[in-house]
């Protein structure tokens, strides 16, 4: 019922082309996150789904119903799409109490009074803000206000819940708390959720699926793990992950068994991979996650020798920066480790954890 399909959505603000041929399928029950840097069109996409924006081209299908058909200038109003929306600014009505805010939609839909009371109290209970029922928004803290907006959105039991950077106005501690709350809520309500954020940790922890946006285009849609492990291009690889992924320039050379990757990290043979015949050599970028690097302080076979440049302890983990043939590489080690500056160490990595990208196009070529 609540499967959402976007087909060829194009949206212009004046002459600015903000959404470029956006295609997306959100399965029923999914928690899909639209992730990308600010200004990439993710909020606009969400508003198109909600019906708050009218695209110039494309279709939106919710369940079995076409709710937006730009070619026919047909747009179902937001309230008839069976969804609800949580705004980044909260958009709580300041002149109404919590009860009035949450019950507003039910009153508009002319539910009986008793039922409204029951539903509102249930929603507030779920979000643990029952006691604030008669307060005005200005009398609540930011976190409580956030809970009210979510209560307001779920009280009508929408089939589809749209959230626009709901946690961006909260402090770090509250954000972690609300993440857990949202995840539990998703599992309890079994609603399809589309969620917008620029915070990758939020996306990785919450979503069943992530759609990555760059400059008005969807670049990759996949599960959180796949996006993390196999980013389709350099931009995604660069965007996802903290500390940032290591990029190392290398060369792709033809080899008998497939192709050989030559880089400061050494020579690696990728079996069963074929190089285009026309190309003898190709410039590539290797990407290696910091946590996929292992360190040893004594010589080992097949390990790569390098020098410690600096050590950055961060409590539960330690970041170590190395110099490998004038290139910097960062490694992440769980726990607290000690190295001297300029100390000689040996590092090791599983070659399967390296992704190889075309240096010119930035596209993922293969996984070694």
């Amino acid at each position: 019922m609540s499967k959402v399909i976007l087909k060829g959505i194009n949206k212009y603000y004046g002459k600015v082309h903000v959404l470029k041929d956006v295609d997306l399928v959100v399965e029923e029950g999914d928690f899909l996150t639209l992730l990308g840097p600010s200004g990439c069109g993710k909020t606009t996409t969400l508003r198109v789904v909600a019906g708050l924006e009218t695209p110039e081209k494309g279709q939106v299908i919710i369940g079995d119903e076409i709710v937006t058909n730009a070619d026919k200038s047909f747009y179902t109003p937001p309230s008839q799409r069976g969804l609800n929306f949580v705004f980044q600014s909260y958009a709580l009505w300041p002149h109404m109490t919590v009860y009035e805010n949450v019950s507003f939609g039910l009153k508009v839909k002319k539910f009986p009074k008793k039922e409204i009371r029951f539903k509102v109290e249930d929603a507030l209970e779920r979000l643990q803000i029952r006691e604030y029922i008669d307060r005005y928004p200005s009398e609540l803290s930011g976190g409580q206000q956030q809970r009210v907006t979510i209560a307001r959105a779920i009280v009508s039991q929408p089939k589809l819940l749209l959230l626009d950077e709901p946690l961006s106005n909260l402090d770090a501690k509250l954000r972690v708390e609300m993440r857990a709350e949202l995840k539990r809520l998703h599992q309890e309500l079994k609603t399809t959720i589309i969620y917008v954020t620029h915070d990758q940790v939020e996306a990785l922890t919450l979503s069943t699926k992530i759609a990555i946006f760059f400059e008005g285009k969807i670049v990759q849609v996949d599960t959180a793990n796949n996006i993390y492990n196999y980013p389709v291009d350099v931009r995604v690889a660069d965007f996802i992950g903290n500390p940032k992924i290591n990029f190392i320039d290398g060369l792709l050379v033809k080899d008998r068994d497939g192709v050989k990757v030559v880089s400061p990290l050494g020579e690696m043979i990728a079996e069963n991979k074929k190089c285009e015949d026309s190309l003898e050599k190709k410039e590539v970028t290797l990407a290696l996650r910091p946590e996929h690097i292992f360190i040893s302080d004594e010589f080992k076979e097949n390990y790569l020798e390098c020098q410690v440049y600096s050590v950055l302890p961060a409590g539960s983990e330690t970041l170590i920066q190395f110099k490998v043939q004038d290139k910097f590489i960062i490694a992440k080690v769980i726990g607290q480790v000690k190295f001297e500056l300029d100390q000689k160490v040996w590092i090791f990595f599983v070659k399967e954890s390296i992704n190889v990208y075309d240096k010119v196009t930035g596209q993922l070529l293969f996984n070694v």
Partner: protein
Amino acid sequence: MEKLETGLSKGRRELDGKMTRLKNRFMRLVTDPYSVATVIAIVVLVYLIVVPLWEMLSATFKLSPQDVRSVPGAIAGEFTPYYWKKIFNSSISEAIFYGPLKNSLFISLMVSMLSIILGGLMAWLVTRTDIPYKKFFSFMIIVPYMLPSWSKSLAWLTIFKNDRIGGYPGVFQYLFNINPPNEISYGVVPIIITATLHYYVFTYLLMSSALSSINGDMEEMAEITGANRYTILSKIVFPLVLPAILSAFILTFSKAVGTFGIPAFLGLKVKYYTISTMLRANIRNRLTEQAYILGISLISIASFTVYINQKAIGARKSYATIGGKGVRKNKIRLGKYRISAVIILSIFIFIAAVIPLFILLMQSFMLKDGIYSLNNITTHYWFGKSNNLIAEGEPGIFKNPLIWKSIYNTLKLAFTASIAATITGTILGYIVSRGRGKISGKIVEQLSFIPFLIPSIAFSAIYLSMFSKPRLFIPTLYGTFTLLVLVSVVKYLPFAVRSGTSNMLQIGYELEEAAMVEGASWVKRFTSIVLPLAKKGFLSGFLLVFISAMKELDLLMLLVTPDTRTLTALTFSYTDTGYHQFADAIMTVIAAIIITVYFISLKVGDADITKGIGG
């Protein structure tokens, strides 16, 4: 054959697609309350503002029956450049156009320059320095604006009148036994002085909103770098408010250029004409077409100045409000100048606000004009019964049913017009604020600003001719109260809409979108979200229009009938017939009502009239 068919059906499919698209677009337009409201607003505004202007313009090219004989071989009602030639290029041009034009331009130039200096200085003192008694001063500075502009010319006359032009001598002559020369009693000097004493409030309001929007941090930063106060003022504050100064100058100019009351009282006696008084003279002599051309010239001057304002400083104006939060303002310490600043400001307020009021009040108690002794004091003009020996038996104003009726008319008009204007301003302000960046919003904003450019006297002239006969769906309105309300609402629309827009801009659109998602209709959204949140701003818009309507003369003078006469119109006719005491007494009543309402709104509702003026 097959190919042809598929081609045909494809064509038909495309056509069908186009039709449904058109149909859907149309349905969306007519079912979307915002577009419906916008369309209605635009139609009404065009009908009430653009059509009158057009009629006025076209009338000046049509030969009227009474002028048929002046143009050989012409037929009444035909196109003719006759009137334009007569005004711009004939033996009387100098007398009826160029002379008055020079006077008008000179007066408004001087008035706006002096107003900028006075108003700007006072705004700076009140907003940026540590001058004491700030609340008192900021209230008193605005008081002159509560009185009709021409009341100050009446006060001037009472003081500086000479006995050369007839009548009684003024206070000055009585006290010092010097007969003031004509140049002091009448003409350009007193016009400029009294007009400045009125319009400086306008610049003061504009300037103080600009000054208070400068973030104190900028000044503090300059102080940290070691700049002294003068440098801060000239290098930081002044450049930041320069755009505001220029636009205040131009707005004051375009307001002063059309003013009628002041030059009428102070200029006509010595045959000193401005465009506005010449316009009124032409209407009186039934030279309507000529009057219209003068009106159009006034509109052109005002539009031109505003156009310059938008072109030259429109883009730069934006930085006047940079850091517009103005949360914390550091006050410049006046130090040793503090006391002299208080004294000078007090003297000024005494001259601008207290003396005119006092003079008016005093004169209303004088049995005979010009005799300044205790036994000449009487309350006759206030409470006296009809006495054939005084003023041909006119009873005191509170014993005169005519005046009670006028008080009733005035209050009814001021309240009805300001409530109607506030409602209209709210709706139009909604359209403007929600249509930001859209053409619809721009059109409504521009249309509703036009009345600002039309001098009241010209505006009432158009409405007089437009509604003195039945029009499309509208019966003859001349002589009705409705016409007075209509003309007032339309004339004050620029203020009402500005105030409404700034009010609406404070309500985030997301608040409405949230209700939209919940399924609330436009009406529901407007009544349960927008209106309750906009409530606070209503009073400011209401007050602004109320004050203007209470003291309005120029706009109503041509349109009132004995039945609908307002207090101001009554004052004017009393002055015309020489019963100054009655005029002064009524003026005192008007001032009392305005100041009371203003004071109550300040106390009760935190009203801020700067919103509609500045913005």
